[in-house]
């Protein structure tokens, strides 16, 4: 599948009970292996994500994004960006990165976006680094 935002990101983002503040909420990125079958239409909370990475150096739930920025990038684009994220001294084989709002409870943590690495990517006692695109993690064009 191609990288995408989750449909429910917008749905939950505008829902008063699950609203998402991309700047102040705890936004995390988790890793899942290739046996996870993403569904950007029906998967809405983090408990829908299966086969999360469990390798050495990776903590369940993933890493918290720092220096988050949700900004108007141009006349027609808003952009979400954050610092690169990495797992040092890790042994990881993974296919997907899932961006989500963490409430501390998987069943109430709304999914935001999924990045498909296209193939398994592996670190072996080394650093697994996700270097976000210069244009951001995701954009919304209006």
């Amino acid at each position, binding site marked *: 599948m191609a990288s995408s935002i989750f449909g429910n990101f917008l749905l939950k983002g505008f829902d008063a009970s699950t609203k998402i503040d991309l700047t102040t909420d705890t936004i995390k990125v988790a890793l899942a292996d290739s046996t996870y079958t993403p569904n950007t239409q029906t998967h809405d909370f983090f408990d829908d994500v299966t086969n999360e990475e469990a390798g050495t150096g990776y903590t369940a739930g993933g890493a918290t994004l720092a220096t988050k920025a949700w900004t108007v990038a141009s006349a027609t684009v808003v952009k979400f960006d954050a610092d690169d994220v990495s797992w040092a001294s890790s042994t990881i084989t993974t296919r997907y990165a899932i961006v989500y709002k963490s409430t501390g409870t998987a069943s109430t943590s709304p999914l935001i976006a999924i990045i498909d690495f296209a193939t398994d990517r*592996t670190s*072996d006692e080394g650093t697994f680094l996700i270097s976000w695109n210069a244009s951001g993690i995701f*954009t919304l064009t209006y």
Partner: protein
Amino acid sequence: MAVAFASVSAVATATTGDVTVTKPTGLTVGDLMICFGLSNGASATFNLLAGWTSIQTNFIPNGTAMTSRAQYKIADSADVAASSFVFSGTSDSKSAVIYRITGHHPTSPINTSVYDARIDTANWADNGGTTITPSVANCLLLMFTGLKPGTLAISGQAITTSNPSWTEDFDNSTGPTIAGAHASRPETTATGAVIANSTGDATTDWHIIFIAIQPPIDVTVSPSVINATGAVLTPIITGGAVVSPSVINAIGAVVAPSKMGQADWSTQDKSDTASWSNLNKS
């Protein structure tokens, strides 16, 4: 951090029995220690030290009977506290050294290795017996050579494919002749045959142990940005008319009550031109 040669102990020799090798300088917990030893005798052995892992070993009875062994250990606190390491074997002459390597894979430092031997050979340049193919990039290559005792020297260490720049770390001709050299090589292609030259004798007997030490494997993922598009949908227009609906204004009105105060309104004149008056003047 790249896997790198850090230091090597002084070459230790023994005419019989155990050989005691001093700790390489700067040894710290987590460093990789690699010992290369050579023993010369009709049934020579060079033993594996407790807690160490053998990389390659072989005994060749032909020519000058010799046994060589390479073994490794990830240094722990006891190793750091030690001043030397004692390697045993048969009561034959021995030579040994210990390398200190840093930046290596912390649990599986040896990527690949090979052993080979020749007798009565002036220089080593075989046709593939010593080739190795590292499976990851930027391995540190170690080339250990062991020759029969004599006033020999080894030089010109190289490989035949994508040859990097080699540094000879030691070259000892006291007792069994041993030499070692290292080089960093980014390629993961086969190295081709090892090349080394000996001087001091027309021909000699060779042991070669060739090792690739691997670094930790990093990965950097650079995903494309996800672009999501929001759109205002055009309404479907039927009947050929362009409908441009105005805004819907919801108006709130105060509804007039049915009575106002206590006034009682009525009419006296029922004619069409009747006028209204208030009979109750209250």
